[in-house]
């Protein structure tokens, strides 16, 4: 039987808020007016953090050339970091004409004998999907030959966007890894972190707190993840989705198959981190644990608030406009509010209905929810008297024109703003932005301009 997931099923997720109003699919791309990555991109993002597994792209260089070694998802795995090692079959004309299955099998052999991975993820791409390479058969055969899981990931770019690729990755792990191994022991407080990629080490901002409470992270999908651990994920008591709606299908299926309930949390900013920890404790349903969690939250918040005192003055009365996508529309807003910054507007252009509702709830009735930030944000800055624009690089010019401070919200791709301690990093970066003269200075008139 083919391991190809049914795309239709993945697109229409019953546990997805917006599918209640009978929307057919999450996104059909518009030719000539589409941004964002493809399903392969999404699958890579979801799985690459498994540093003890090799990630072999069965495709040409476009599918890996710009993408390998770009994900800052650190690992504590002591072996070679395979997240940062690029593998591609580099399909040539010959493989298109005669098929690439033998080359793929030989590539897996090369990887297994030179890099000793715990598993090999084999990503299909558009070209072999069209020419019809039987990746399932190659993977099955190589799994038997090498005694490690070779997992086919059927995410050729043409099936859809990143979000779908992330689901396909979840599906592959569900089908080929989860439930294939028993843990050495279990505890009543075993959880899986789903969708936590440990970007810039965000997981490490709060994992120690969970451990302090006696909550064991049985496995992660996939930040600082281990193949041996994800194979035991079916024995967890709770699935915690971290800021990743796209993996709802995976947790819903785990609930159906293994009876594992799931909750969704964010660990961005103080308020959400506290709420997340408490939600986990409450879902595990132990009174003593809940009590200890409350105490830990109180301790951490007090410590953080003391450390934030020097920043209070800098941020007092400051207003920010936020232009970013998805759940960041509210999760970053929450972090800014923790710092005492008023968020006067946020972008909901790419947000789901649920994210929009949340943004409204976090920002209050008077805040502006921008549906077309590219054209709106300059006007919004004027109207609100904002002091700070947090957005992607393309919006830099708006900030310069308006002579207000700018912070590239994608900086978080390099530094972690997550958990309690990440808020201090965010505070320092925002302070530096607000106090930097460059935004005021750079667009001054040249000596020859009138």
């Amino acid at each position: 039987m083919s391991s190809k997931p049914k795309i239709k099923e993945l697109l229409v997720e019953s546990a997805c808020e917006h599918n209640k109003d009978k929307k057919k699919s999450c996104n059909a791309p518009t030719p000539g007016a589409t941004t964002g990555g493809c399903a392969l991109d999404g699958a890579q993002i979801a799985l690459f953090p498994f540093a003890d597994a090799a990630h072999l792209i069965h495709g040409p260089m476009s599918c890996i050339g710009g993408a390998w070694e770009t994900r800052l998802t650190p690992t504590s795995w002591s072996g070679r970091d395979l997240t940062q090692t690029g593998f591609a079959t580099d399909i040539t004309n010959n493989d298109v004409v005669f098929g690439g299955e033998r080359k793929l099998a030989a590539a897996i052999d090369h990887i297994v004998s030179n890099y000793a991975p715990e598993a090999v993820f084999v990503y299909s791409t558009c070209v072999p999907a069209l020419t019809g390479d039987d990746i399932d058969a190659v993977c099955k055969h190589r799994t038997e030959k090498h005694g490690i899981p070779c997992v086919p990931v059927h995410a050729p770019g043409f099936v859809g966007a990143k979000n779908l690729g992330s689901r396909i990755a979840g599906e592959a792990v569900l089908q080929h890894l989860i439930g294939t191994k028993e843990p050495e022991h279990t505890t009543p407080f075993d959880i899986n972190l789903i969708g936590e990629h440990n970007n810039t080490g965000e997981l490490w901002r709060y994992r120690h707190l969970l451990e302090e409470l006696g909550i064991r992270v049985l496995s992660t999908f996939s930040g600082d993840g281990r193949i041996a651990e994800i194979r035991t994920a079916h024995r967890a008591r709770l699935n915690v989705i971290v800021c990743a709606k796209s993996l709802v299908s995976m947790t819903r299926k785990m609930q159906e198959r293994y009876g594992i309930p799931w909750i969704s949390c964010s660990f961005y900013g103080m308020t959400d981190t506290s709420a997340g920890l408490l939600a986990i404790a409450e879902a595990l349903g132990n009174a003593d644990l809940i009590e200890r969690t409350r105490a830990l939250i109180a301790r951490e918040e007090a410590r953080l608030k003391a450390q934030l005192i020097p920043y209070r003055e800098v941020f007092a009365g400051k207003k920010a406009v936020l232009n970013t996508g998805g759940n960041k529309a509210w999760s970053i807003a929450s972090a800014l509010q923790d710092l005492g910054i008023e968020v006067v507007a946020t972008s909901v252009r790419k947000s789901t209905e649920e994210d929009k509702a949340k943004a409204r709830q976090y920002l209050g009735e008077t805040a502006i929810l921008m549906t077309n930030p590219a054209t709106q944000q300059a006007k919004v800055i004027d109207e609100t008297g904002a002091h700070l624009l947090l957005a992607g690089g393309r919006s830099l010019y708006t900030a310069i024109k308006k002579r207000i401070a700018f912070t590239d919200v994608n900086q978080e791709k390099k530094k972690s703003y997550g958990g309690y301690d990440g808020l201090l990093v965010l505070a320092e970066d925002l302070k530096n932005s607000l106090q930097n003269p460059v935004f005021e200075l750079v667009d001054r008139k040249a000596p020859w301009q009138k």
Partner: protein
Amino acid sequence: MAEVKRKSGKPLQVNPHKLSQPMGATMAFLGVDRCMPLMHGAQGCASFAKVMFTRHFCEPIALQTTAVNDVIAVLDGGDYSIVESIKNIHGKLTPELIGLHTTGLTETKGDDIRGIAGKIDVPLVYVNTPDFKGGLESGWTLTTQALIDQLTEPGDRIDAQKMVLVPHVSLLPIEVEKLRELIESFGFTVVAVPDLSSSLDNHLGEKQASLSSGGVTVAELRQLADAAFVVTVGGSVKPVGATLQAKNPAIRHRHFNHVSGLEGTDALVAWLLEVSGREAPPAAVERWRKRLQDAMLDSHFSIGQTRFLLAAEPDHLAAMAASLREVGGQITLAIATVDSPILAEIDADQVIVGDLEDAENMSESYDLIIGNYHTESLAHRVGKKAVMRGIPNYEEVGSALKNDVLYEGSAYFLFEIANAAERMREAQVHHAREQIKRQGSGVRRAPD
């Protein structure tokens, strides 16, 4: 010259530095003013390229996709997705040119983009660039040829002072500008095709760019056939000379494999003196030659004792190797992204077409690495130092303004490399001394 190993014999690339043919096409279209490069493939084909170039150049990158999905991949011959894309682009913007380039996906399904292009009534240039063939250099060259072939109007008149400059893909924006300025200083007018020097040169534009903001204009491309000369720089773009000559056989073609180092720049300047009929170059050129001579002497001691790994596109390899060889640098290993005839002309102990796994397996043979961003982690793993050159370079800002060519840039290049080599050796010496200290104190402490 070394023997060239043109085939890796491996079934895969591990830690590749090779980039794809459509990426080269995108870059070339970004060197045309007010162009919208349109990649005909799945949305990810364009997205991967766009993310890479945005991070590399630290600039917004104009690039759209025909967003081929599963249904279109099966049912459409390209007509729907291309026509629809152009309609949608023109709904918001008024590009001077659409730069349509294909990918492995659309070449495998066999779309007839030439036929479709014929039915489209907005300015458009199309080029077939499947990613299962060639690489960055060939994508750039094929696109440059397509621009000329499809836009340039044939002619028989010649403007004796006009030159068309065709740079290879690895020449950086500022290097193209310096080349143009040098040629112009001999009294010529120069049109660079493509021209990244005014589009991706890290300038603060008037507004956020949705189209390419700078580069050769479509009007200039139409009028190329009255040039007296076409000057190609880099083995990969040599065929572009004939493409332009097909528009006007009176155009003369002069080719240079590179314009790096003393000999490389001398060759260009000698030719410019000849064709301009001048006795001497401008004073600044003479001055920079003297500075380069001095730089060669100042840097030879450091570079002359250094064994290099160069990992780059073939033309870039040839240029860097030439500069380093002039001051005794030992190119013990040169790894090219793809095969090219120019590899046979590189003065190195070993020249291979390969990946950074090959580099790692041969780490005994070199001290200092020059290559793209991915050689940084290679350097960490094998305990060497790397100097960043080539695409992508994610870690450093300002790479569009690095100048390694002609007398001036070659001097900067030699200084940078010599300094990096010295710092590397100092670190090694420091490390060795620390080892001795530790052993020494261990010995002394032992009797206690």
